[in-house]
Each structure stands twice: as structure tokens, then as C-alpha cells.
């Protein structure tokens, strides 16, 4: 996973609530066995018409938003299916940060695991950033993770909250599994303890 420190980029406005993961990446594109290559299908139904031609009105089909690295949206972003293909597709398109008033739990956690920073801000703040994003090329938004601020194009700073552990992993580009394996002795102890306490619980064996 790539580390996330600071990011300055174009923010795309997507003023929609309850953007579900079926919308981010429809099920028909889940038949891949890889993590990469899904960017061309991100928001497929919104982005392309029935013939596969781009819908010019969709934000990510317009300049400069084709190069967007930040997405601004409304409430409950990423609801629905647990598919990690959703953050993979966003990342493959180039999105590294999503700002919305709230996120669905699984999407929120999946994002961090792929180096995408989800930032929850009060609706009024999101509305300001949504207006900024409308400015297109002139709307470079900066995310400074170490200082936990979003910097608007006019230089104003908006502070955001983040779980310290998640922040640490993102800043260092660390993967969770490596972290957890440092606790392997505790896991061993837990398993031994459980087996001693409930020796009658069977293991699964599908024959």
C-alpha cells in the first residue's frame, strides 16, 4: 500500500447521497481475480450510456475532473455491498481521498486498507468544498494528513478527525497484517486458552 502524507489535487463534486457500491462498481465487473484495472468501470452506469459512449454530463467525464484525485459527496457514501472492488475501482481511476458527511462502515474500512483517505466532515463544510469543487481547475484542494486539515483553494483550513491508528498506518503505508502478526504470541495464547476452556467445541471438517 502506498503511504498517504499530503495530497493536492482536483476535487470532483458528486452531490449525491447514499452512493452505493453497486453504483461505484456494478456486479458484472466483479468477475476479476485482480485488484487493478477497474478504474475504467468506476461509476459505469452513470459514466456510460447503453452503447458504451461517455455521458458528457457526468462529472468524471468532464475536464478537469477526469484527473480528479478527491471526491466530494453527500451522506452515507459507500453503502451496500462489502465489495472491495469499490475502493479498488476508485483508486485505479486516481481517487485518493473522499470527503462526505458520513460513510457506510465497511466501505470506510476498505478505503483505509487501500490507501484511500475517507474524511467525514459536517454537511456545511462539505457544502463549502462542493462549491469549491465546482471551480474546476482553479479548485486545488490540499489534504494534509499529518496536520489533519483540508486546505480550501482560498487557503482556509478545515480540521478533520481520524482514528490515530489508521492515521499511523496510512502515513507509514503499513499493512494491517504485518501489524497484527506482531501480536502472534497473544493469538497463540488465546487459542490455547479457548481450547482448554471449551475442549468440547468441534473444529470444522467438511468431508
Amino acid at each position: 500500500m502506498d503511504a498517504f502524507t499530503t495530497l493536492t489535487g482536483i476535487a470532483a463534486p458528486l452531490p449525491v447521497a447514499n452512493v452505493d457500491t453497486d453504483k461505484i462498481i456494478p456486479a458484472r465487473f466483479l468477475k476479476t481475480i485482480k485488484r487493478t484495472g477497474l478504474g475504467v468501470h468506476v461509476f459505469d452506469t452513470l459514466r456510460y450510456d447503453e452503447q458504451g459512449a461517455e455521458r458528457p454530463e457526468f462529472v468524471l467525464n468532464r475536464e478537469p475532473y477526469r484527473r480528479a484525485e478527491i471526491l466530494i459527496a453527500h451522506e452515507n457514501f459507500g453503502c451496500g455491498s462489502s465489495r472491495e472492488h469499490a475502493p479498488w475501482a476508485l483508486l485505479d481511476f486516481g481517487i485518493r481521498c473522499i470527503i462526505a458527511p458520513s460513510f457506510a462502515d465497511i466501505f470506510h474500512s476498505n478505503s483505509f486498507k487501500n490507501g484511500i483517505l475517507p474524511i467525514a466532515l459536517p454537511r456545511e463544510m462539505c457544502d463549502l468544498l462542493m462549491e469549491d469543487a465546482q471551480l474546476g481547475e482553479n479548485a486545488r484542494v490540499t489534504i494534509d494528513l499529518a496536520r489533519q486539515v483540508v486546505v480550501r483553494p482560498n487557503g482556509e483550513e478545515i480540521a478533520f478527525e481520524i482514528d490515530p491508528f489508521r492515521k499511523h498506518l496510512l502515513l507509514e503505508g503499513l499493512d494491517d497484517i504485518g501489524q497484527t502478526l506482531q501480536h502472534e504470541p497473544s493469538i497463540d495464547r488465546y487459542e490455547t486458552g479457548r481450547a482448554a476452556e471449551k475442549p468440547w467445541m468441534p473444529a470444522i471438517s467438511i468431508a
Partner: protein
Amino acid sequence: MTARTLFDKVWDAHVVETLPDGTCVLYIDRHLVHEVTSPQAFEGLRLAGRRVRRPEATVAVVDHNVPTSDRRLGIQEEESRIQVETLERNVAEFGVPYIPLLDARQGIVHIIGPEQGISLPAHTIVCGDSHTSTHGALGALAFGIGTSEVEHVLATQTLLQKPAKNMLVRVDGQLPAGCGAKDIVLAIIGRIGTAGGTGHVIEYAGEAIRALDMAGRMTVCNMSIEAGARAGMIAPDETTFAYVKGRPLAPQGEAFEQAVAWWKTLPSDDGAQYDTVVVLDAAEIVPQVTWGTSPETVAPITGMVPDPMAEPDEAKRAQMQRMLAYMDLTPGQKLAEVAIDMVFIGSCTNGRIEDMRAAAAVAKGRKVAPGVRALVVPGSGLVKQAAEAEGLDAVFLEAGFEWREAGCSMCLGMNPDKLTAGQRCASTSNRNFEGRQGPGGRTHLLSPAMAAAAAVTGRLVDVRELV
């Protein structure tokens, strides 16, 4: 000691270690794996030179992508076949127990977990699928995870998690005739909204929940994720123990008695605190049906398509207008007058034998309306066998329904069963998102009895008119 909820108890029993910031290393008892969300996880293990820590706590099955017509011919769609073959290679390489496609026990991962006794009370259960919440019906803490977490569980048998908040949804009183578990959960989602449970684990309680059989409880817990909750749980009781007893992978004999003694300690203590409490009166519930493209856009079948102009919030109004345009419905239109083209009875929400029975009871002696195509897809091979032993397949076939092999099928349209653009479907599945059942398809969520009623009348209809 402070009074604890069901969730608190199961959580506490699985904390391996608490890190300084409150994140817990949470032990996972059971891990279910399927073909769509696992290939990248196994690939990650391979690249890092890691093994599966406890293959014997893991079970893999194929369900999302498999055809539900004759399978002896193999899988025709190349990408689906590659995913299935990839899983088969991975389980062989990593020594993970696997239920193959042609095994009678194959089926939707959330149907076979409880069916085989893999899912048990007091256990932590995860799967790379959001409807893992289903297994909470047994009094387990069960939730969906992403592929990175699938890899994490495979490698460490744990997850890094922070405790969720506790939410109590109490459904008092008795359900009226013609209503079932699906109507309860749709009514709950209609009340609290698709983000109502975010950050919470919902415990369902109250007389109407206690009265449900295990199938009904699974239907309710299944859709917890549609209310935004991390998981849904129901305290185990005699109904639960009777269900678990004798399941192939459950503890047997003396071990079962010991397990029951443990499971009886799980129900929430008197005075346990919940962060959020919601109370519904079952007596007021009417058969439910969705009209929009979010599960919270639900109404009684006796109602009408709502009018966006009555919505004061501008953004919400615009969203409603978009939904009605997509669904091709007009404000004020009676829901019971909406004509349908397709019916889908199945999925992890309503693919159990009890659901097949409820649908068959309505279909019996009737005919699928002209121009309507109706699919019945059992949730597992064993559900299919049981239904056939009871003659339900004959009831469906005589009425003109299709009787298929087990799988996810038209719930998400990854296999050949999908809606075409503009088709309208009465579906017992759990998501009515745009394009969920096929690009341009329109989905109305409802109960199995209501779906069968729609099939035989050709429109959305109050099933109580037919019984």
C-alpha cells in the same frame, strides 16, 4: 460487574488484545469464503509467503457467480468459470475445506453456514460479503468484511476492530396474518433509514421477534446491513438450540449440552444500556413493498407511491424524483396497481425451506399470470432436496414457475439470471439499487408470499386478498 448486552458478551469473549488507542485484536471463530471476494486475498498471501492460520476454521463455497440451470454442463461464462477455478486452486493450495459446485450441500454462503452447523451461537463469524449479518440470528457476532480483511483473517484468524455501539430494536406484540419476517425488517428499515444503524450492532428483541422461527430471524438479521448496521443479533433461546441440535458440524451429544449451558449465558443482562433504542408495534405492520431504489423507500402495499413535492429537503426531493423516473412510477399511483414482468424468489434473505413453503402456499392451484416469468431459486442444494421431498417443486412447476439450482442468481445478476433494461421484478432479495438485478432493471423488494402473489396476479398485490 456492569450489565452487558448480547453483543458486549460475544465481543468481550473474543478480544485477544486491546491496543492503546482502543482498537482490539478480535478473534474470529468461523470464516466463510466465496469465489468473488477471495481471489485477491489468496494472491496477497501467496505474494507475502503467508499461510492460512486455521484452515479448519474456514469453509469455502461457490455461490455468487454460478449458473442455476443444469450444472453438469459446466460454467459457460468464461470469467465466472475462471473465478470458480481460481477458488478451487486456492483451497487446494492452502488446505481450506471446500464444498464444490456439484455437492448437494452447495448453496449461498449465508444459507449453508447455519444449515451445516458452521454458524453457532456465541461465535464470531465473518465472510467477504455484507449479508454475513444473517448468521447473527443464532446469537453470533457475524459481519461482512472486505477482501483485505479476508486476507487478514486467513493470515491471522483475527481482525483489527473497534467495538460498535449497541442498538436495540424491539418489536412488540404479534404480527397480523399475512405478514412475516420480511415485512418486519422492511418496516424497520423504513423507520430508521439505510444509515440508521451505522456504527451500531442491532439487537432485535421483543415478542414478535421471539415468535419467529430461525428462518424468519435470519431474514431479519440478513437485512441489518440495509439499515447500515455492522451486524444484527438475536439472543439464542430454545428455538435456536432446537435448530442447532444435530447439525452436521455443530457439537454433538454431551458437547452439545455443554455448549447450550454456555449459550444460555448470552442474553443481555437486565439493565444493560443501549446507545439507541427503537420500538415498533408488530400489530401495525402491513405487508411491505419498496417503491424506490433504496431499501428505505418502502411502503405498505395498501399505500401509494409518495409525492416528491411533499418532501421539504431539496436534495431528498431531487433524489426521490430520480428514483421515480428510474422506477417509472408516478406520485399517487397505488402500489397494488403496479404491473410486473418478473418474479424472483430466493437469495440469502428468503431462500430457505420456510420461504419456499410460504411462496408455494400462495402458488398452489394458481397459475403464473400471462407475460410474467417467475423464478424460484432455492438457497442451497439441501433446501432444494427438502422442497422436492415435500412436493413443492411440483406445486411451482404446475403453476408455471421455474425451479432452479441453488445460488445467488438474480439477487445480483452475476450469473445469466438478470433483468433486462425496463423490466420490473417483484423480488424477495435485499437490494433494489439501480441495476442491481441487471442494468436498467427495476426491483420491488417484498416477502416470498407477496412475491408469489405478484406472480399469479401479474402485479404487486396484497397477499391477504389471496389467502
